[in-house]
């Protein structure tokens, strides 16, 4: 098992989340699990399990034995106690959780145990209890593997990983595949699920943005299926200039804060000011969870798994905190919540480092393995059979869009690449900005615009802007980036001269990034304490990510290797001192380069090329919106729309304010002074 040793040297997320070890401040066991223990003075039980914490990762998995890595001297509790990840989510004793709990509850060992159980059940004829295994691969880890094994592209890494994962979690060698049920391991690309997740997030943004600024009247641009989510809002303002003013007015409510990063959401829920942060969080599930929801449908729809039980979804991620996110129950939003099976969208999160160690142990290093086709999440949904959504433009050419449900079984790389961004944060900011610019102001943000501006203004305090090509004569518009104290905190501001007769450039949309806890804390302070009473924070949306440099720098990514010993196993490497910051930075640069190569094109700045790119983006965007309409129809029923009732039940998460332990708790250290 790969323990905390696989933390990347540059990434600090895991370190920083582990504010307080379980020995010091895991207040849960004595408080809520062992209430009777407080007053007993019983001698500790004899034997080796003194002070062990048994980890129970999930309800319906086989019981997990006490982790061998938990050092007994770290855990002074005298009785065996159990802490589940759900407990960690519900407690604010430490800011997120102890690493030992996370690392041990969701592991390759656990998946391999399920493989054996499935095999046994198949032999016993208990087909309906078998849990088919499906695996989704996050794009960030594909880039990490590509960099680590010097592969040409993340796509190549994905292909090899598909092979390795099917071997790793495949049947025991002595089983005849013909007898096995089900015989296959599904491997999906998370970017496919992200198309649905991003559309849902954009619809949520438009809905909340317009709700704060005068209802549907705020929509001044072109309408796609995303706008349907706004249609139900009560209209509040008049037409003409007043409408325009409403759209440009600062929102009185705070900005919408991204919730894709579990490090940040756990912090937000447990912070002393959680009551202020939580209402600002976007509720749309992260791509990780959307992938879980879609993968389950895809597997269930497959003939080979039709008789089996609930699929077991494994997600390979760049970050240990994703394990914590996986333990969060789905269930959608409040009154719209549809009855669910109470299950998890993700049953097990493995980090890139953990998967790498398991692959090395089972089949040898990834670079020696062949490549295989991935399964497609969306092809098996069959959206092409559905009528297109009434709100979708139906008669548009779709140059960049593949026809969903095309004969190719794998996902369409080209199309997914266009939707890609290069920061590794998941593309939320760029997608939302493109959707908002289009729906609210009729502006097309060319593919790669955000990546281009990031490169054009890399240093603290710098600025760069990109002209946009509005459809309306007389309008001019540009997107400007303004870098803050460091490159991880910057704003993207959409500036618009709406009327040639009134040539005043107005800031109509302000999106921000805050990567790394130092920036998160600054943004969190600004959004809850405006400079002037009544004034907004200035942001409409902030992409909050706990890791400096966002998710490519996740703590679960592969660590740099010693150039002299490239074949060293993670176990061996763990014995060496942590890699130097220089080595970690160099690897991160390479990962970002590969990830960016996977991403969209750089916009040309001369006007002809820009026009062409804009037109191409426009067509592709409309085709994507048409696809979104069809996908929602296939997933949630014919009239389903983004941010509609069905989607809100299936694709959203409720975040809660979690109270801090009271000072009077006997185990709380708050009253100690030294």
């Amino acid at each position: 098992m790969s323990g905390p040793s696989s933390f990347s040297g540059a990434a600090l997320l895991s370190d920083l989340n582990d504010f307080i070890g379980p020995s010091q401040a895991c207040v849960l066991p004595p408080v809520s699990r062992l209430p009777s223990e407080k007053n007993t003075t019983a001698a500790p039980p004899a034997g080796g399990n003194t002070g062990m914490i048994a980890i129970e990762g999930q309800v319906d998995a086989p019981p997990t034995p006490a982790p061998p890595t938990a050092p007994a001297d770290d855990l002074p509790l005298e009785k065996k106690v159990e802490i589940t990840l759900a407990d960690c989510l519900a407690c604010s004793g430490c800011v997120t959780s102890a690493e030992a709990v996370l690392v041990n509850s969701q592991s390759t060992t656990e998946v391999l145990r399920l493989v054996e159980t499935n095999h046994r059940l198949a032999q016993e004829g208990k087909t309906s209890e078998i849990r088919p295994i499906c695996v989704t691969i996050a794009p960030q880890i594909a880039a990490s593997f590509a960099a680590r094994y010097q592969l040409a592209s993340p796509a190549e890494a994905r292909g090899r990983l598909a092979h390795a994962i099917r071997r790793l979690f495949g049947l025991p060698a002595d089983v005849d595949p013909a007898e096995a049920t089900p015989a296959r391991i599904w491997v999906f690309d998370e970017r496919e699920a992200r198309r649905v997740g991003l559309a849902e997030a954009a619809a949520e943004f438009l809905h909340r943005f317009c709700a704060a600024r005068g209802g549907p009247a705020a929509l001044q641009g072109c309408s796609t299926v995303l706008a349907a989510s706004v249609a139900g809002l009560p209209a509040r303002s008049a037409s003409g200039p007043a409408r325009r003013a409403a759209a440009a007015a600062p929102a009185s409510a705070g900005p919408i804060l991204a919730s894709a990063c579990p490090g940040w959401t756990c912090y937000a829920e447990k912070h002393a000011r959680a009551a202020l942060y939580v209402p600002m969080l976007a509720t749309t599930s992260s791509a990780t969870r959307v992938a879980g929801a879609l993968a389950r449908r895809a597997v269930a729809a497959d003939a080979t798994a039709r008789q089996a039980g609930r699929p077991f979804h494994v997600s390979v991620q760049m970050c240990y905190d994703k394990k914590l996110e996986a333990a969060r129950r789905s269930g959608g939003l409040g009154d719209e919540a549809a009855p669910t099976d109470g299950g998890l969208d993700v049953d097990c999160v493995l980090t890139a480092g953990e998967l790498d160690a398991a692959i090395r142990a089972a089949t040898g290093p990834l670079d020696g393995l062949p490549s295989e086709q991935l399964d497609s999440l969306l092809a098996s949904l069959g959206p092409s059979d559905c009528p297109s959504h009434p709100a979708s433009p139906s008669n548009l050419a779709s140059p960049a869009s593949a026809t969903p449900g095309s004969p190719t079984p794998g996902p369409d790389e080209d199309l997914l690449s266009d939707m890609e961004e290069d920061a590794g944060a998941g593309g939320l900011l760029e997608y939302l900005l493109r959707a908002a610019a289009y729906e609210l102001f009729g502006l097309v943000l060319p593919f790669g615009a955000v990546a281009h501006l990031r490169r054009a203004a890399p240093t603290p305090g710098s600025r760069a802007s990109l002209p946009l090509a509005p459809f309306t004569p007389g309008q001019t518009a540009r997107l400007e980036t303004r870098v803050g104290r460091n490159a991880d905190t910057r704003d993207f501001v959409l500036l618009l001269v709406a009327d040639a007769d009134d040539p005043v450039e107005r800031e109509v949309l302000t999106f921000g990034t805050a990567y790394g806890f130092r920036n998160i804390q600054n943004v969190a302070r600004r959004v809850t304490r405006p400079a002037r009473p009544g004034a907004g924070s200035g942001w409409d949306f902030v992409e909050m990510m706990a890791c400096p440099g966002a998710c490519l720098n996740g703590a679960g990514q592969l660590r740099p290797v010693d150039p002299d010993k490239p074949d060293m196993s993670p176990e061996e490497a763990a014995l060496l001192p942590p890699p130097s910051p220089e080595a970690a930075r160099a690897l991160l640069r390479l990962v970002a380069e590969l990830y960016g190569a996977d991403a969209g094109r750089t916009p040309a700045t001369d006007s002809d090329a820009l026009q062409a790119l804009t037109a191409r983006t426009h067509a592709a965007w409309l085709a994507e919106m048409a696809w979104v309409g069809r996908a929602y129809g296939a997933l949630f029923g014919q009239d389903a729309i983004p941010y509609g009732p069905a989607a809100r039940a299936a694709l959203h998460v409720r975040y809660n304010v979690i109270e801090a332990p009271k000072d009077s708790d006997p185990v709380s250290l708050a009253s100690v002074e030294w």
Partner: protein
Amino acid sequence: MSVELLDTLMGHEDRVWHAAWSACGRWLATCGGDRTIRIWAPLIPRPRTVTQMVDGVMTKQVHEAPPPSLERWSCVARLKTHLHQRTVRAVAWRHCGRFLVSVAFDASMVLWQRTSDTSNEWTPVIEIEQEGHGAEIKSVAWSPDGSFLATCSRDKRVIVWAFCENPLELEIASDLYGHGQDVKHVAWVDLPAEGESSQCLVSSSYDDTIMVWRLRGDDFECTGVLKGHKSTVWATAALSGSRIASVSDDLSLRIWEPAPSQDLGSPFISKQTISQAHSRPIYSVSHCALPAAIPLDAFVARHAPGQVPPADVVRLGPAIDAAAVGTLAAADDPPQHEGEDVVMGDAGDTGPVAEAPGPASAIIGLVATGAGDNAVGLFAEMDNGTVVPLRRHGRAHSLELNSVAFRPLLRPDLAARIPGLVDPQQVVLATASDDGTIRIWRVSL
């Protein structure tokens, strides 16, 4: 030499945790368990009017006010905010004297601004309530140029805040993880480096280490971990020549000096250890650079003419001028505890060790320590980079000393421009204690 108590400042209603002088030396800020911050200055006596019968006539006679002296102090401001719900653990002045930061055990932090240059009215202008640290804040320090503010906490973090005056803003510039335990203290040391800011941050912790942080690009990075103390390192102080003094629960005072080359893997190396410097944990250390060095022979001639150095001085090695050390060790209040060891370098687990220094020829500064044995320790900082015990003043307070602070000694031309600065060339030490008082001491060499 002598150490003389000038005044005992009473007013705090609970233990006093910390004392800090403004850079000009005119004001002393203190804070403590009563959740207040107090600012003290020498009392300005008022003219006295006496009415008496002179030759059968009632006469008013105005006695001119005597000049303010270091012997009488008064509290000129008392700062209290609802934000600090628990003990105010530390205060720090920005070099300009117009801003003061207080940090508390409830994780809150307040930036105070003086409302005008002449008044002692302060307004809380930035209030940070658990938006930085997640647990007790233990220490706060402004960088020498006032552009950064460092804080540290039981949450194991060191946070560097960037300060902007216009518009007034404190933003987190760096959020530093590295210590394995409660971080007790932060201090800045000026350590010149090629192509980099010379402002270097030093943090010390319950994990027994000292970590050194430097600005690289837009973030601070750990450039070294100093190991050697056997227990909690309660505080550090910057000395002359970019050296550092550290004090610990292990009763020792250690001196670290800048590494002669980068190959040693650490920006500082162990220079000297004075074990058993106190009989209880040492909580605080302060340094005062003398404007003019005092030649050792002059010092010896003045204080102990003709004295023969005791035999045990030999174990100090050839590093320090034997006669001088003998003289110094024989100061008027001899150490209460035997076995004060002075070890040059340390062959233990400290990593690289400095070469033996050449002989000392002058005293260039003073180092004071405050400890749980209620005593103040005084050490001479020599021109060869070592420190030599001068004397230990037991029973400085009736309870533990939490903080010692030398008033900054300014160059005479600078001091002359500061109104209200009393006796600027006098070495003055402030001590703060669990007994609820602050004491002001005159140190004469």
